């Protein structure tokens, strides 16, 4: 090809260069656009739920699960749990045995996420292989994890017990051989709830699926069904796979035995949610066992009352460990008179209408709410907030509880439906506004199952915005999040109630109203005997509602003198004295004290205490008292290698049941998908073909 030389040629050359540049830019753009679209495509395809295969596929007691995401099936080890709880007075000691059985031909690692009471002090772990026992050691969490991983890689049997939340734990068992069973036994100590001469013991059995707010982060994937988000970075650790309920498959059978020694003659013993067999072994003793088959699908609750005139009003237990005496003190203040001329109230009801509440829970919550609204006095003002993916208020501002207003509220409540997400922060913001006004009492009543993963940010929010309001939680359903219920109530300076059955609504709400209307014991203080060098927890004692006792744990240098408890009930000062020498011998008081101190330290994190210091203090305490915490784990490693070098190890996250009364589809379910990527494919195809054309053009240009 020949061309003229000259000034116009310079123009041509310039045009040529521009054309080339444009080609380059277009090609790069096309490639970038294509890459972007492809990335988008990759990001869109996640989410998997578990669908068990048909029973005939899962013959021989094995359970095969099918992952929706890729259609592959996989097997998991099976789990059975045996629980033994010994109650003496106000304290329970429980042994939980988890039997991991591997019916398959491969070697397995099983991971199980399970709940324990929110105040459980877990201090022992043992691994049983056949008739051999391996005792667990307490280590810093990372060190324990590393020891476990090393054992897992080298084929040794090992168990790791970690805490995800005060009431959620994970047990991992590595190298379960084909056809083998490994038993994990953990023990914990717990203080029981004692209110109005009634004790209650709760043993949670299943972690309900939690709503995970925030933006998912693909780097935070794990074995859970939810990836971590900016708000809940450890979401993958608290969202174990959930089995879609079906008639012929229930997982995780449970046996449970309670040996009860109340210390004083018992009046009534009842199990609220499970059929039990009660055997009387003495006036103050009972043996309680679950009757029939039970599975880990709902919380167990045992409650007992003692003969009214023998109900303890003061109790002090001590235990000597080395130089120190550890003590648990309980003092029951008298019930105050109901005041007739009280301040007008402003009551804000908040009801959770998220998908997890669908089914039995929302019915109980609505009934409780309706009862509460109709129970308001004419001088009271009120408002109702519902929340799921969004929060909305019935009235723009609180209104007087006149009959026509409550009628509107009741109609509104009856029409509520449970569906969608659980954006609880939005509801807290609507309910609490940090305002203070001395001419009224403001009470926020929060009805929820607490099925969220972002507890800490919510507690922070409650503390920030509380003002002079008081927050009362009502835990609804078969598996409420006890950590949320207790800590939100503590932060909100109120109290908590559980409703787990429709026929409990009336009684439980009645008790709550009595608390709301009775004078509160304020300015509670404890004076320890001089020179005793006492460290007691909690440091700041909460206000106490009707029927609630003062409870503290303390470490004392010397066990002598007199403890004085005082406070103001309504306007009346109250005072009680307890001689230290009257203390009864108790066991495990040191562990309870350490657990209380750890809880207080963890709470201080929300008040912006420096994390490294708190962490060091918690680790120190936990290592001394052998306790599992957020920063420490128990690990047990069997020295003998088990898995041969050539054999592969499969990993499996053990699925949990859906809590009783929940609706799978309301939590995970959705309407059928109704779109293809055809349009996207066609566009992407066209883009790529265009880019190809451009690339060909460029090739030819440079070929000439």
């Amino acid at each position, binding site marked *: 090809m020949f061309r003229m030389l000259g000034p116009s040629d310079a123009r041509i050359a310039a045009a040529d260069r521009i054309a080339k540049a444009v080609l380059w830019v277009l090609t790069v753009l096309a490639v970038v656009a294509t890459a972007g679209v492809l990335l988008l495509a990759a990001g869109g395809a996640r989410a998997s739920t578990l669908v068990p295969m048909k029973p005939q596929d899962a013959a021989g007691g094995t359970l095969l699960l099918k992952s929706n995401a890729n259609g592959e099936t996989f097997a998991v080890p099976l789990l059975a749990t045996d629980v033994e709880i010994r109650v003496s007075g106000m304290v329970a000691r429980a042994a939980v045995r988890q039997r991991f059985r591997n019916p398959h031909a491969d070697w397995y690692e099983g991971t199980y996420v399970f709940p324990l009471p929110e105040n459980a002090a877990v201090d022992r772990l043992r691994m049983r292989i056949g008739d051999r026992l391996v005792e667990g050691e307490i280590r810093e969490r990372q060190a324990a994890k590393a020891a476990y991983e090393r054992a897992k890689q080298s084929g040794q049997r090992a168990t790791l017990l970690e805490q995800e939340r005060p009431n959620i734990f994970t047990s991992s068992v590595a190298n379960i051989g084909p056809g083998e069973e490994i038993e994990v036994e953990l023990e914990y100590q717990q203080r029981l709830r004692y209110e109005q001469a009634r004790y209650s013991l709760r043993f949670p059995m299943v972690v309900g699926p939690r709503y995970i707010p925030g933006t998912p982060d693909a780097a935070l994937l794990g074995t859970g069904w939810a990836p971590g988000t900016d708000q809940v970075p450890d979401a993958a650790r608290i969202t174990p796979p959930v089995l879609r309920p079906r008639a012929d498959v229930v997982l995780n059978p449970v046996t449970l035995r309670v040996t009860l020694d109340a210390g004083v003659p018992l009046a009534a013993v009842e199990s609220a949610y499970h059929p039990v067999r009660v055997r009387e072994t003495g006036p103050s003793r009972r043996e309680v066992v679950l009757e029939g088959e039970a599975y880990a699908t709902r919380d167990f609750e045992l409650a007992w009352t003692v003969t009214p005139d023998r109900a303890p009003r003061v109790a002090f237990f001590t235990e000597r460990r080395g130089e120190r005496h550890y003590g648990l003190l309980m003092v029951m203040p008298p019930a105050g008179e109901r005041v007739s001329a009280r301040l007008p109230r402003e009551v804000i009801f908040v009801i959770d209408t998220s998908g997890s509440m669908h089914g039995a829970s929302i019915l109980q919550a609505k009934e409780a709410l309706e009862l509460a609204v109709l129970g308001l006095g004419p001088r009271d003002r009120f408002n109702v907030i519902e929340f799921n993916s969004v929060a909305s208020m019935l009235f723009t501002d609180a209104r007087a509880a006149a009959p026509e207003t409550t009628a509107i509220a009741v109609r509104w409540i009856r029409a509520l439906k449970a569906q969608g997400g659980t954006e609880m922060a939005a509801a807290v913001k609507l309910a609490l506004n940090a305002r203070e006004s001395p001419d009224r009492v403001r009470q926020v009543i929060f009805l929820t199952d607490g099925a969220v993963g972002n507890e800490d940010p919510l507690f922070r929010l409650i503390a920030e915005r509380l003002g002079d309001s008081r927050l009362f939680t009502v835990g609804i359903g078969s598996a409420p999040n006890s950590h949320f219920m207790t800590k939100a109530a503590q932060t909100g300076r109120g109290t908590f109630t559980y409703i787990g059955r429709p026929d409990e609504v009336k009684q439980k709400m009645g008790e709550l109203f009595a608390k709301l209307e009775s004078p509160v014991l304020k300015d509670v203080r404890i004076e320890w005997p001089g020179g005793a060098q006492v460290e007691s927890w909690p440091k700041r004692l909460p206000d106490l509602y009707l029927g609630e006792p003062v409870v503290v744990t303390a470490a004392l240098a010397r066990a002598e003198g007199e403890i004085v408890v005082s406070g103001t009930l309504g306007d009346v000062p109250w005072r009680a004295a307890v001689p230290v020498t009257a203390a009864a011998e108790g066991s495990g008081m040191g562990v309870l004290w350490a657990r209380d101190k750890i809880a207080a330290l963890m709470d201080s994190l929300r008040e912006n205490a420096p994390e490294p210091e708190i962490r060091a203090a918690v680790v120190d305490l936990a290592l001394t008292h052998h306790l599992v915490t957020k920063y420490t784990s128990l690990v047990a490693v069997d020295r003998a290698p088990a898995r041969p070098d050539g054999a592969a190890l499969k990993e499996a996250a053990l699925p949990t049941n859906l809590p009783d009364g929940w609706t799978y589809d309301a939590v995970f379910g959705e309407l059928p998908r109704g779109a293809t990527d055809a349009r996207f494919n*066609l566009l992407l195809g066209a883009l790529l073909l265009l880019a190809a054309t451009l690339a060909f053009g460029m090739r030819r240009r440079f070929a000439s």
Partner: protein
Amino acid sequence: MRRAILPDPDVALGVECALPVAQGLFSDRDRRSQWVHRVATVLAAALLAGGLWQFGQGVYIHAKAGLAQALMGRAWARALDGERQVKPWPWADTWPVARLLVPGRKVDLFVLAGADGRAIAFGPGHVFGTPLPGEAGNSVIGGHRDTHLAFLRELEPGVEIVVERPDGARRRYRVETTEVVDKRDVWVLENEGPTRLTLVTCYPFDALRAGGPLRYVVTALALDGSS
């Protein structure tokens, strides 16, 4: 216009090779050009392959949607003859459970058992657990907004829909409402209330990609006196 044919009087006549010859036989520019040439070739081939693949995918989805419905006709005829759960092709894991017609709109579709992704590639799918189309209660049918159920956007209240059951009986419905809901609004699936047909597809209709959170729901109430 080629300018090189006539000499320009203002400049000296000169000849230039298209590849500007500089100092050496192969200049830096040459090497770069060769490199660019090679890269462009590979890139062009890769892009062509990718483009054809993606384009093919798009065409395949529509072809599958169309062809499957055609094959379903025979299976339906056998179903009408009393055979149960007739698979339209031997390896199918679904079968037609009803026929959906909109008189005067060229809509004649076979509804398949199950509304999971695999079934609705071949036709609108009946959601398991809801009453079969034509029976009492709330029968829910899901389908793709860009293939079988694309016609939903044109349905207005008052339009009649006819459902043929495997026993040949027909039931008429009239569109009552059309609404946009979130995919988690599972109340759409509830069975309480009058006998109706609930057609669910993705929304918006013109979205490029699948997997959005919104659904377009058409509710059609059964008319009495259906035969």
